[in-house]
């Protein structure tokens, strides 16, 4: 079996497994998985920039929130229906990531982290400042009637699960394809040695800008989907915490692997879920596990698997 066939099998197998999970898992876990898949889309978007391009952003919550509020506000203020609102959400994330990318890419390394963090904080404060429209921290509910897309009721368990699965599958496969394309390979080259890539004749600045836009737009799509599937938009999703989460998921799951983001989100979700059923000091348990993982699997779960067993993993 060739490496391409192996990775196709891995990707399609993962999707099939998630589809089957709906029928065999108890309702509680099915609900969790819907949420996990949407958050995994966010992680996939983050991983594209961090894992494959080598740019560490601390401001992705801004893109997530751009998608969420683009959708939410256009429904709330302009009474748009689901599909156009979703397009507005996507477009907001695209425009904002293009602007932020254009400005932030004048810096690199630690400065890039700080600049993206600052922009995201500015975005969060903007949401609070315009509290009259955004309802600030309190947020607002997406009306039941607005949560129907192509005749599918996204507020039902089944509709929600399969909408999340469809979205996840599309992003998962698209990014897997992209990172193995010449464009994706060039991004990896920039991650490995930017000056060398430039001196091979690649326009590294444009490549990095495209990576920020793709990453930001996928993150925004996740934000819009989150609002749509779970019926709520709030400023919490624009806080710095939501910029740190995707970084943690990707680090735990395995940066620069296609499957890593999903594994990272599942792991983190159930780590907090299980430890909080044991003690109220659940962050203590979660923290210890995270430290151990960083010590013994520094490349993340999928990263270690690739290093030790499955060298072909994309």
């Amino acid at each position, binding site marked *: 079996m060739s490496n391409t066939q192996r990775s196709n099998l891995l990707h399609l197998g993962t999707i099939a497994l998630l589809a089957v999970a709906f029928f065999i898992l108890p309702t509680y876990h099915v609900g969790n998985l819907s949420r996990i898949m949407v958050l995994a889309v966010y992680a996939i978007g983050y991983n594209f920039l961090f894992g494959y391009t080598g740019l560490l952003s601390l401001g992705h919550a801004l893109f997530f929130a751009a998608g969420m509020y683009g959708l939410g506000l256009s429904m709330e203020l302009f009474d748009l229906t689901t599909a156009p609102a979703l397009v507005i959400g996507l477009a907001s994330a695209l425009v904002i990531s293009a602007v932020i990318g254009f400005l932030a890419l004048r810096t690199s390394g630690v400065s890039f982290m700080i600049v993206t963090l600052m922009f995201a904080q500015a975005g969060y404060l903007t949401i609070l400042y315009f509290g009259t429209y955004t309802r600030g921290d309190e947020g607002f509910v997406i009306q039941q009637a607005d949560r129907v897309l192509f005749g599918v009721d996204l507020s039902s368990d089944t509709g929600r699960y399969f909408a999340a699965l469809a979205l996840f599958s599309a992003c998962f496969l698209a990014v897997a394809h992209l990172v193995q394309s010449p464009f994706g390979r*060039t991004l990896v080259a920039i991650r*490995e*040695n930017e000056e*060398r890539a*430039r*001196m*091979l004749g690649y326009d590294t600045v444009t490549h990095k800008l495209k990576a920020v836009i793709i990453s930001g737009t996928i993150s925004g799509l996740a934000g819009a989907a989150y609002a749509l599937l779970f019926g709520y938009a709030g400023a919490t999703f624009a806080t710095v915490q939501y910029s740190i989460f995707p970084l943690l998921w990707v680090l735990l799951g395995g940066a620069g692997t296609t499957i890593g983001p999903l594994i990272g989100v599942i792991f983190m979700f159930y780590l907090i879920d299980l430890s909080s059923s044991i003690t109220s000091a659940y962050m203590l348990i979660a923290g210890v596990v995270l430290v151990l993982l960083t010590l013994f699997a520094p490349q993340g779960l999928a990263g270690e698997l690739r290093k030790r067993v499955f060298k072909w993993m994309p």
Partner: protein
Amino acid sequence: MDAVNILSTKGLTKTYGGIKANTNIDFVLPKGKTMALIGPNGAGKSTFVGMLCGRIAATSGDVFFEGQNINALPAHKRISLGIAYTFQITSVFAGLSLHENVALAARRRLGSDVTAVDAKVADVLARVGLLDRADQIAGDLSYGHQRLLEIAMGLAQDPRLFILDEPTQGLADSEIASFIDLINSLAGETTILLIEHNMDVVMKTAAYITVLNFGEILAAGTPDEIHANEAVQAAYLGTTTDA
């Protein structure tokens, strides 16, 4: 502009603060020939080629490539015109396989044509003698092999002008011998600008030599002329003609 010169410079100057690294360099590179750029350490050789390929911004002066003024072009655009550059300090993609290293170099020109890229990669890796290591990770190679990989990455671009910054540094004698053969096999196919300290390599490959000293051109000519040049001997041996 003379059509037989692939590259030329007019009054090319680089100053770092008050220090002049290159002063008023007028330089011509004949098409299809191998030119060696020599000079003592700190003579400004790397600064000069850095300005040719756009890594270093010139303070003043002009660079012409195939008759076109390329001053305003950023490095990646100059490379796209057909200038390949290998680094003085080995700079490969250490985390990627040899195949992928060379494929990245070939892909910029050949695009997503997988068959053409693979053929090109196999061809140039065979040329530098690394074909049997194609699947190894570049960072695991010995220093000498990494130098050869750099050269392979240059060749994969089918450059019209190939600039090599001290390519034989750290190579074993047997590897230097095959490097000389490789350069000579490219003669006529492509123009080569070679920064080199090893005079044996220079004498066996170069049709022309330019000598830099203190950021200025001290002499230029055929190997025999340079060999006989007293100013060059003085610069290299440290003898002063006048006290």
